[in-house]
């Protein structure tokens, strides 16, 4: 094989930071997401404490005012959805793993790739600087409904804070659009010989569909953000009606409609939540199969359901608007398309259940997190069709029931997908860092899994009841001091809220185990064998797992990787644990022990 490449081993800081090496860019994205998820989690703890102990003074800050609470909600939602759940699965693991799974040595546009990352980083810095400006960060939530978001007078944080939010998300949208073009082109153009479409791992199908959705959704979001920016600064009135009177400021300009924003935003917003989860769904299929030593059940159907979920995902945005002034007939139509998504989603769940059915799988930590993903996806997914019935949404909209729904299916399932990915691909992460194949501690991992899943359910299951009792979301306080029908209604939710807050502490604390595991392994981990999980996909090809293997300037310089079959070929015991990687020529397979 080739000699160690000094350029790769000891590059200058500058070349290392502004690298166009997709593996390093992937790590940069993952580091950004890890940093973001830490901030986002701390913010969520602030909210949980404030909700049950409203007089608790935040250290270094003091009493939490209603506008502080809303700024925290807005930052939490924006950071988690954009900078964690969009960034880590798609751009992070996408860069780190996707090219190798294609047998490619490069992303299609390496420079664009680096630019995308640095634009994302600039977006994050912009967002995080917004609490520091006068009047603080924006308070209009991750959905930024106008006129609240369009008029600076509408509240503290809606001036400069809101502008920074807009700039941040615009940069993010630009970067995501560029990144999705890169991913799509890479999948279309850079597949190695033999890797036909039907031989692509389901992870690649997840990334592919998510990138398609990103391309469509983020460009619409970008347009909407620009229009909103114009409403704020150029005297237009796309989203604000004539005669709108906000806090003494009268809008005399054009007669726009806030509903236009809702349409544009949710045309982006719903696909966005699928962008967050599709890579995790693909990974779950692959990991359940790998550790069960079986092919994912109904492989082809899984490809189609991934694409179908993506397609339907573009047609359901109105389900966020049933009680927002949408025509009731349109609500019915969106209701039908939304419930229709439950069908490919159910097909996925059935495939997962069938894949592990009586397979006696190997319970690695990655497998446990994949099983956790399935459980959370079912738990969160079952409330989707309930919310998709307008008559029921008329009761449940904007209550904690919705919050429970999307935290289980998106936040928790999404994060479980990321944990599965991290435990499974850690040898790849360490290889990209220039350390030989390291594996995270499995015993720490098991503790991490069990505490996390139990705490996740303890946090989010009671939220359904708070929501059914009528608790609205985005409430800075549940009590106002006086006894009113509202405080009486909300008082019934206090036990559930306390339970949620206590559980949130456990959930957050369990993540210290994960951090400890990361650090300990990177410092003192022992190298694992090549391809430790006996996987069949190309990222475990020796050419990719060897950390000393440099990225050559062109594909011609190295031995070609050729694919001979689709992924997930195993022979189950008692014939021995034989697995046949995608790159192994038929000739070199041992005679089948049958």
């Amino acid at each position, binding site marked *: 094989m080739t000699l160690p490449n000094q350029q790769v081993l000891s590059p200058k800081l500058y070349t290392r930071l502004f690298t166009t090496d997709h593996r390093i860019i992937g790590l940069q994205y993952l580091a950004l997401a890890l940093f973001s998820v830490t901030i986002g989690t701390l913010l969520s703890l602030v909210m949980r404490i404030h909700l049950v102990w409203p007089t608790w003074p935040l250290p270094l800050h003091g009493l939490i005012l209603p506008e502080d609470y809303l700024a925290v909600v807005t930052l939490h939602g924006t950071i988690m959805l954009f900078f964690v759940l969009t960034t880590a699965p798609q751009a992070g693991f996408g860069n780190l793993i996707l090219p190798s799974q294609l047998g490619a040595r490069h992303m299609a546009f390496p420079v664009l790739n680096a630019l995308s990352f640095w634009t994302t980083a600039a977006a994050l810095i912009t967002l995080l600087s917004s609490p520091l400006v006068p009047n603080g960060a924006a308070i209009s939530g991750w959905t930024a409904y106008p006129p609240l978001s369009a008029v600076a007078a509408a509240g503290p944080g809606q001036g400069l804070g809101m502008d920074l939010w807009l700039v941040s998300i615009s940069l993010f949208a630009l970067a995501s659009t560029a990144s999705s073009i890169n991913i799509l082109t890479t999948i279309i153009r850079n597949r190695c010989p033999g890797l036909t479409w039907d031989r692509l791992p389901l992870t690649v199908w997840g990334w592919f569909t998510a990138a398609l959705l990103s391309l469509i959704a983020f460009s619409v979001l970008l347009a909407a953000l620009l229009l909103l920016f114009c409403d704020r600064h150029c005297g237009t009135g796309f989203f604000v009606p004539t005669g709108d*009177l906000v806090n003494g400021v009268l809008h005399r300009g054009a007669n726009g409609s806030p509903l236009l924003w809702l349409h544009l935003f949710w045309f982006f917003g719903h696909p966005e939540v699928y962008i967050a989860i599709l890579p995790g769904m693909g990974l779950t299929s692959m990991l359940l199969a790998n550790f069960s030593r079986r092919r994912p059940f109904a492989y082809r159907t899984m490809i189609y359901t991934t694409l179908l979920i993506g397609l339907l995902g573009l047609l359901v945005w109105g389900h966020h608007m049933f*009680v*927002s002034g949408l025509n*009731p007939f349109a609500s019915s139509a969106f209701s039908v398309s939304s419930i229709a998504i439950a069908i490919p989603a159910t097909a996925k769940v059935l495939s997962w259940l069938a894949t592990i059915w009586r397979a006696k799988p190997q319970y690695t930590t990655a497998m446990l997190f994949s099983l956790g993903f399935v459980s959370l996806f079912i738990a969160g997914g079952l409330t989707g069709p309930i919310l998709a019935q307008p008559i029921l949404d008329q*009761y449940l909209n904007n209550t904690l029931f919705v919050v429970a729904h999307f935290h289980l299916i998106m936040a928790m399932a999404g994060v479980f997908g990321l944990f599965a990915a991290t435990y499974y691909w850690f040898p790849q992460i360490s290889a990209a860092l220039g350390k030989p194949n390291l594996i995270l501690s499995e015993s720490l991992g098991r503790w991490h899994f069990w505490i996390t899943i139990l705490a996740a359910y303890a946090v989010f299951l009671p939220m359904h009841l708070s929501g059914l009792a009528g608790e609205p979301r985005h409430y*800075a306080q549940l009590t106002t001091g006086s006894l009113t*029908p509202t405080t009486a209604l909300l008082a019934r939710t206090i036990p*559930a809220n306390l339970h949620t807050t206590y559980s949130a502490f456990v959930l957050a604390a369990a993540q210290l185990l994960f951090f400890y595991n990361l650090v300990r392994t990177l410092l003192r981990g022992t190298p694992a064998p090549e391809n430790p999980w006996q996987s069949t996909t190309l990222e475990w090809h020796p050419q990719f797992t060897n950390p000393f293997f440099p990225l050559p300037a062109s594909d011609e310089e190295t031995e070609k990787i050729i694919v001979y079959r689709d992924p997930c070929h195993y022979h189950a015991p008692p014939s021995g644990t034989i697995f046949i990687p995608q790159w192994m020529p038929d000739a070199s397979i041992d005679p089948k022990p049958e």
Partner: protein
Amino acid sequence: MILASAPTATSPSAFWYLPIDAAAHGPALDHHLLLNLWIALALLTLAHLILFTGLILRLRSEPTHIGRIEYLPLAIITTLFIALAVRAESLWAANRYTGPSRTALQIEVTGVQFAWYFRYPGPDATFGVTRPQLVSAAEANPLGIDPADPHSIDDRVTSKLVLPANREIDLTLRSQDVIHGLSIPELRLKQNAIPGQTVHLHFTATTPGTYALLCTQLCGLGHFRMNATVQVVPWGDYIGWLASQPTEAHQ
């Protein structure tokens, strides 16, 4: 004041934490909601049973019956969802597809950061014109009602929503500034108020009592305290209460 928000402890709605139900369309909605919740709980349990059973049972070769494992359960679930959707749509249609009857009582609700104002049109059954330029809380005209409009004179603006029991109500929903969300959980009602747009909502309150009206759409820093009181009272009490409220002419 009686604050009756919890149903009797033994009812199924109490199991799911629902507050009492005081609207004519409520029981059907609750019934459908509870049905959905039980089905979801059952499917959640079933899926986990299958998951754990599959993990515990001893090894067997790979399942291959794609029809039996994938398509049959899929067909069953699809049928189930179609049935639920049909029922839900018919309830939705009954509530929203048609307008209120001609005899429905008109009340206008306006959301303003961070208060709700209720306007009763008086004997002429017509609301006076409002103009944003005339809005002035200091001059007791928070809605900007134009005193020059003859329809304004008998209008009454209140901060409490008082409804006669068993009379159909036609709510006209408006917002002066940003989007607000009108929600009366005990009447199983929710509808956003959109600036620049009027939305109608019709319903009948059945059970007299005192209920909460909350804002459910993030509208700014006072969102959490943008609440009001709803009182459902017998017709006679309603007439008496209304007469005791000052009209615009007597402000």
